[in-house]
Every structure is written in structure tokens, then in C-alpha cells.
């Protein structure tokens, strides 16, 4: 029974990890940019939820309706004004610009919010329901639900809308996309906006689930990397599976070794094959995911 409980906890956490990885995955897969500031975006999202729920006195879950559009505009403008420009100088300058940006954001948050630990707690934070003898945290369930909604909406957007198709086309072949009438700079900016919008959601999850600091960004950036590398670039379903895998690692490893296990896993992974595991298994026809 204990094992089933661990599995359930891991899967519930997996949704959060998947959304954290999702934003990273979008940018890597579409814009072909390693965004070292993604962890800070998550923390910005966490502060956004904290501040909004305090200021407006609303349930933290509702803050996403404000923080998502705000974060989208933030990401869109950032890409349009700054990053598109630096990407024309090559991959490395762009990488370093995002690195610089992560530092600026982190210290700006330190300045504004002090280095203290933060956490949003609600009346239902610690409530548990019992289903078939298993304890299921209501909060974890809610967060998983939100995560899945976000993943679904994003998939729908990319599959069904003109802009979504344009973004996928740009990811496949930017030159051919431009020749089809797509403004590639704009497509990139929308993709970045979507990525920062997912960070608003992961920020909410982080703020309700754990304590966070202005300096926590690096940790979530690494989480995002692990999820992306395992799940594959720009592969949304793969990201969900990888998120759950990561969640299980955390639950099994516990507070002390969870992170370490995933780091080692990631390193081994990168060494063996810097592509993605799920994709490879798919190609070989071995995995059913």
C-alpha cells in the first residue's frame, strides 16, 4: 500500500513539475534559445500570486487570471525588444543575455521582497481526502488539475489556431515560415509570452506547495532542465511524462536526496544521449507513452 501512496504523491507533484518544464521546453523547441532566466520567471509568478492574493484578498488560485496576462505581456515584450535582437548575434550572446536577465530579476526581487521565505497557505492547504484507503491532498489534486488544464489549453492553442500553427511552423523551419507570410520575430515573441504565462501558473503552484525565496530561481531552472531533457524539446506530452517521473524521484528520494538523485539522473542522461529518451524509445517502437 505504501508504494501505491508514493506513486500517487509522485503523480500529483508531477503536474507541477511538468508545467515548470513546459515553458522551458517551448522556448528551447521553438525559439531554439536556452533561457537561463526561466527559473526567475517562475519565482516572479510566485510573487505575483502572493502579492495579488494579499492585495485583492482573493483566493490564490484566482490570481492566475490576472498574473497570466501580465506575465504574457512581460515575456512578449522582453523577446520583442531584447532577445530577438541579441539572437541575431548568435546563440551564445543570447544565452548570456538571459543569464544576465536572470541575475537582474533575482536581485530586483531581493530588493523588493527581502530575502525572507514566502509561502501562501489557505484553509484547504493541509486538507486530505481519503479515496480507497489512499490519502490524497486536496491542494495537490487542485494543482495537478490546474496543470493539466494549462497543458491542454496550450496544446489546443498550438494545434488549432492560426498563431499556434505559425509558431509550430516557425519551430520547424523559420525561413520557410517567413516565406509563408509569418512574422518570425512576432511568432518568437508570442512563444516567449506563452512560456512566461506558464511560469505564472508554475509560480502559483510553487507558492502554494512549498516555501520560496527570491533566490529560488536556479533550483527551478534545473528542475525545468531535467524535465525538458527527459521529455524532449517542444514535446508537450513528453514533458508531462517527464514531470511525473521527476515527481516520483522527489517523493522517493525525500527532502535530502530527491534533488541529488535527479541531478545525477540528468547528468547521466546528458552523457548517454543529449537528445530525449522518450523520443528515442518512440523511434525504436519500444515505449508506449
Amino acid at each position, binding site marked *: 500500500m505504501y508504494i501505491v501512496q508514493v506513486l500517487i504523491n509522485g503523480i500529483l507533484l508531477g503536474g507541477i513539475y511538468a508545467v515548470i518544464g513546459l515553458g522551458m521546453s517551448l522556448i528551447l523547441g521553438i525559439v531554439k534559445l*536556452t533561457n537561463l532566466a526561466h527559473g526567475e520567471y517562475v519565482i516572479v509568478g510566485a510573487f505575483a500570486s502572493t502579492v495579488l492574493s494579499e492585495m485583492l484578498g482573493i483566493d490564490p488560485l484566482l490570481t492566475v487570471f490576472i498574473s497570466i496576462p501580465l506575465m504574457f505581456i512581460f515575456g512578449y515584450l522582453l523577446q520583442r525588444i531584447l532577445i530577438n535582437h541579441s539572437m541575431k548575434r548568435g*546563440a*551564445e550572446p543570447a544565452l548570456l543575455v538571459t*543569464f544576465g536577465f536572470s541575475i*537582474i530579476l533575482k536581485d530586483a526581487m531581493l530588493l523588493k521582497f527581502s530575502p525572507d521565505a514566502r509561502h501562501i497557505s489557505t484553509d484547504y492547504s493541509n486538507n486530505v481526502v481519503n479515496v480507497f484507503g489512499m490519502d490524497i491532498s486536496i491542494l495537490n489534486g487542485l494543482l495537478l488539475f490546474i496543470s493539466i488544464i494549462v497543458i491542454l489549453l496550450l496544446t489546443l492553442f498550438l494545434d488549432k489556431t492560426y498563431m499556434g500553427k505559425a509558431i509550430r511552423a516557425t519551430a520547424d523551419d523559420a525561413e520557410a515560415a517567413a516565406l509563408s507570410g509569418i512574422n518570425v520575430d512576432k511568432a518568437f515573441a508570442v512563444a516567449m509570452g506563452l512560456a512566461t504565462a506558464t511560469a505564472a501558473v508554475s509560480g502559483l503552484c510553487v507558492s502554494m506547495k512549498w516555501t520560496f525565496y527570491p533566490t529560488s530561481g536556479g533550483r527551478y531552472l*534545473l528542475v525545468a532542465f531535467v524535465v525538458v531533457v527527459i521529455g524532449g524539446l517542444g514535446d508537450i506530452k513528453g514533458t508531462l511524462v517527464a514531470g511525473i517521473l521527476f515527481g516520483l524521484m522527489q517523493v522517493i528520494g525525500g527532502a535530502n536526496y530527491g534533488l*541529488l538523485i535527479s541531478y545525477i539522473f540528468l547528468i547521466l542522461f*546528458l*552523457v548517454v544521449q543529449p537528445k530525449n529518451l522518450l523520443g528515442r524509445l518512440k523511434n525504436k517502437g519500444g515505449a508506449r507513452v
Partner: protein
Amino acid sequence: MSKKTLIYLVVYATLGLFFIAMALTGALSSNVMRYLVQIFLYISIGEVWNLLSGYAGMTSLGQQAFIGLAGYSVAMATTVYKIHFGLGILIGVGISAIVATVLAFLLLRMRGMYFSITTWVVAEALGTFFLSWGYVGKGAGMTMNITPYPRVDALYNMSLAICLVTLAVVYILLRSKIGLGLTAMRDNISAAASLGVDIGRTRFLVYLVSAVITAVAGAIFCINKGTIYPDSGFSIGWTISMVFICIIGGVGTIEGPVVGAVIYVLLQEFLAHYPGWSNIILGIIAILIIIYMPDGIVGTIKKKWIALNRKTEKAA
């Protein structure tokens, strides 16, 4: 030896001798010495990061691994084993060299962002490991137990020594056969490979040299601070400083990191008056330089200089 080489050597030797003489005569106030310690150490780690990123195309975000390893080596040597801190530095260098060699097997197969990310993850993993390792005091860290504790002039001598050694090593390396290949790799890697440069071996050597020098400088940094804990020793902040120094000064030149380190330390000192703002302003400066002055200060001046020379030649 060309005229240019001679000028370089004379300038370096004069500066080196000047700083040595300053130490011997005791003409410097301890305050000035404190800045110079920082500058010398940052020059050292900046120079080797420049070798890695600017020449060999290996943008490492995990050099702090070697700073942490060396710092902990000194701390362990002096507190647990009660041996001289110099021996501790040597042990730190040895451990760093071994770790670098093992890592090289994994890292040198990777390209671009995968290399960058893996170096960072390795450093983070080490930090996380030390955080939960009771033997090294977990998150609380350790205090250097050195008696008598080295004073600022001793630290000055040590950091001046490592700085001069680093510059000499980098200079000789770049002048050697390996450096020739390395500079070629910087400009065009496939052409270099086609002309007979062994890319893999060159990369390994550069990685090893950078690990060793970063370890020595890191050990002195930690002795200067007096304590080490996982969040300081394995902090990404070390890499941030290296990146800034090289971007501001200019990657791919010897002089770049020297200029960058001086500006970095002075700027940080100046920005200390505005607590909390220093990294923000440094970050903005770095981004502006990447976009508008991609060759850094030294590179831009060099280009302007060449353009100016050409103009006067044409005019003549």
C-alpha cells in the same frame, strides 16, 4: 621576437615588478591591498574562463565546482587534519584536477548548451551533496582554522603570485603549439580540424588548466573570507563574476579579463553604496555590452585602433 611581443613583455614585467616592489616596501595601505587581492584573484579566474569560453568554445557555467572543492579542501586540511593550509591548497588542486579529468570524459563529448548546462548541474549537484554531507558540516559549513591567520599582506603576496603565474601560463600557452591551435579553434573550428588541430586533446588540456587555476584562486578567496559553506563555495555567483569580467573586458584576448576584473572590482566597490543594486546594474551593463559592444572594451578599442591606423595609412 616581434616588437609587439617585446612591448607586451615589458609592460607585463614592469607591472608585475611594480606590484612586487609595492609589497616588499610595504608602501600600500591594507585597504588598497584588499582591493588588489580581489582584482588579482578575479583576473586569474577570469583569464581561465576566457580560455574556456572565448577560445575553446566551452562556455562553462560550473567553474564554481572547483572553487568549492578547493575551499573545502583547505577547510578540512586545517580544521580536521591540522596541516598547513598550503598543503590544503595542494590537495584542493589535486582533487580538482582529478574531478576535471573524470568530468572531461563526460563533458567533452557535448556541444554548446549541453556542455554549459551539464557543467552547471555538476556544480549544483556537488553543492547539494555538500549540503547534506555531515562530514563537512552540512549547510552550516566550516571555518578555516589557520594559526596564525594570514594577514592581508600575505594574502596579497599569494594572490599576486597566482595572478602572475596565471598570466604567464596563459601567455605561454597561447604562444605555444597548443595555443596556436586554440586560437584557430576560436576563429573557425572546422577549418582548424581540417588543418590538423586535435580538437579533443586541446579542449581537455584547457579544461584541466582552467580547473587547476580556478582551484588555487578559489582556495585563496575562501581563506580571505575565513569560512566556507555550500551556498558560498558552490555558488553560481562565481560564474556570474567570470562572465561579467570577460564580457566587459572582451572575450578572446589576454587583456580583456584584466581590464574586466579591474572594472568589476571597482564597480562593485562603488555599487556597494547602493545595497542590493549592484548585480542589477552589473546585469544591465553586461546586457548592453553584449548587444552594443560585443567585442568588449578591449576588443572594441583594438578594432578602433586598427581602423584608425588604416585611415592614417590611407591619408599618408
